[in-house]
């Protein structure tokens, strides 16, 4: 008990120091990310833990598991996603889409062997993706400050609330055997991480500042989803005044 306490205190101190250090050099926080120094420290923590533990596990999983099996695993968890997509489409008043979503769940859960086969997609019932964060946003809830949570990733107060709601409603939570349940949670986590591997390598190539690139992309994407693909223009979406793009821009070579 004592040891954990002191370990906890030490890491808290370390974090505080890192935060102070970052606060000193970071630019003025943006409207969406008022806790940027804290989040950057969390991002660093994530990089260390993820890079040393989670990512290697995900990579080993991809290497050791044949693709059809990985697809089956992804489909199994995707089937649960479909269930929540359906629930959220109902909450958003989109009955037609919800019908498709529940149809998918019904079909895949039965003939698709508990979701392992995505028969519905083969039959042309398209997959959609909705979650509680999007629904709350459509209901008018503000997104709240942005947070980067180690081992979980980018989120906002609104989206994080949605994730917690989903966690408590998830059918996986009703599996009585704790060991089985935790194993499934673990596999689901590794599956999700493995799916992010290729996107991560793109991020590595693309970004000058990975923290910021990821944050901007996350917030823009969520905004896009809340507005169903038609977000109203933001102040910083504007192209620089027409004159700023020279009539004859200097062409390379």
């Amino acid at each position, binding site marked *: 008990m004592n040891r954990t306490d002191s370990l906890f205190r030490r890491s808290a101190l370390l974090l505080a120091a890192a935060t102070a250090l970052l606060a000193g050099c970071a630019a003025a926080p943006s409207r969406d990310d008022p806790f940027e120094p804290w989040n950057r420290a969390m991002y660093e923590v994530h990089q260390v833990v993820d890079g040393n533990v989670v990512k290697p596990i995900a990579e080993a999983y991809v290497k050791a598991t044949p693709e059809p099996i990985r697809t089956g695993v992804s489909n199994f968890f995707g089937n649960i996603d479909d269930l929540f997509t359906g629930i959220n489409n109902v909450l958003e008043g989109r009955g037609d889409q919800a019908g498709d979503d529940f149809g998918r769940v019904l079909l895949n859960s039965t003939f698709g062997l508990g979701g392992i086969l995505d028969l519905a997609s083969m039959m042309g019932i398209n997959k959609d993706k909705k979650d509680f964060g999007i629904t709350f946003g459509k209901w008018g809830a503000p997104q709240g400050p942005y947070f980067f949570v180690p081992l979980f990733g980018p989120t906002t107060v609104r989206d994080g609330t949605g994730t917690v709601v989903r966690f408590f409603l998830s059918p996986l939570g009703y599996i009585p055997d704790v060991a089985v349940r935790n194993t499934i949670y673990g596999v689901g986590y590794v599956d999700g991480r493995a799916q992010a591997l290729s996107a991560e*390598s*793109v991020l590595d*190539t693309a970004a000058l500042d990975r923290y910021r690139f990821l944050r901007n992309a996350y917030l823009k994407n969520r905004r896009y989803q809340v507005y169903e693909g038609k977000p109203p223009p933001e102040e910083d979406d504007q192209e620089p005044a027409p004159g700023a793009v020279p009539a004859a821009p*200097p062409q390379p070579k």
Partner: protein
Amino acid sequence: MLRTVAITLLLLPLVLIAAPPVHAQEAPDALVKRIAEETLTTIRSDKDLQAGNPAKVKELIESKLVPNFDTARMTALAMGRNWRGATPEQQKQLTEQFKTLLIRTYSNALTNYRDNTMSYKPLRMNAGDTEVVVRTEVTRPGQAPVPIDYSMEKTPEGWKAYDVVVAGVSLVTNYRDEFSDAVKSSGVDGLIKALADKNKGPAPK
């Protein structure tokens, strides 16, 4: 060996005839579709590309994709109001570095596209429009479709893309505050250097 060469030479004029005519009149949506389908076909039929052979991927991107992008305008968009503050020489260097960065990014992503299928939404365009958005959707097995929009402009050499927006995320404007931070702290030359350093780094696998 010699026979292969001979046959290739014989077939060459055929290929040239079969190549679709590229001219200013090709509609923007037709252009996007042609380029996308040709690129996907090339990837699907080439084992080296699927394995991610860096030289071949780069070659494909530079020959197939880059000529259809207005890289100077993309750079101007990513720079925002700082573009005007840059000298023509700096603008040229920025464009060159940003282009390289985007090529590297695409090279990394392209080989993941093998199993994708694309669908194209009907184009909304009035006669005389010089700017349009071509809307497409990419479907991967077991995933919800991802919308990809190409902002296109009419130029004397035909339609060119100046922005690509993936599920609401602009590949160009997503750089804006990274760029403006770099300019604020170390000037336009600092940004050019940061981009050049990034581009010199090892290409992630």
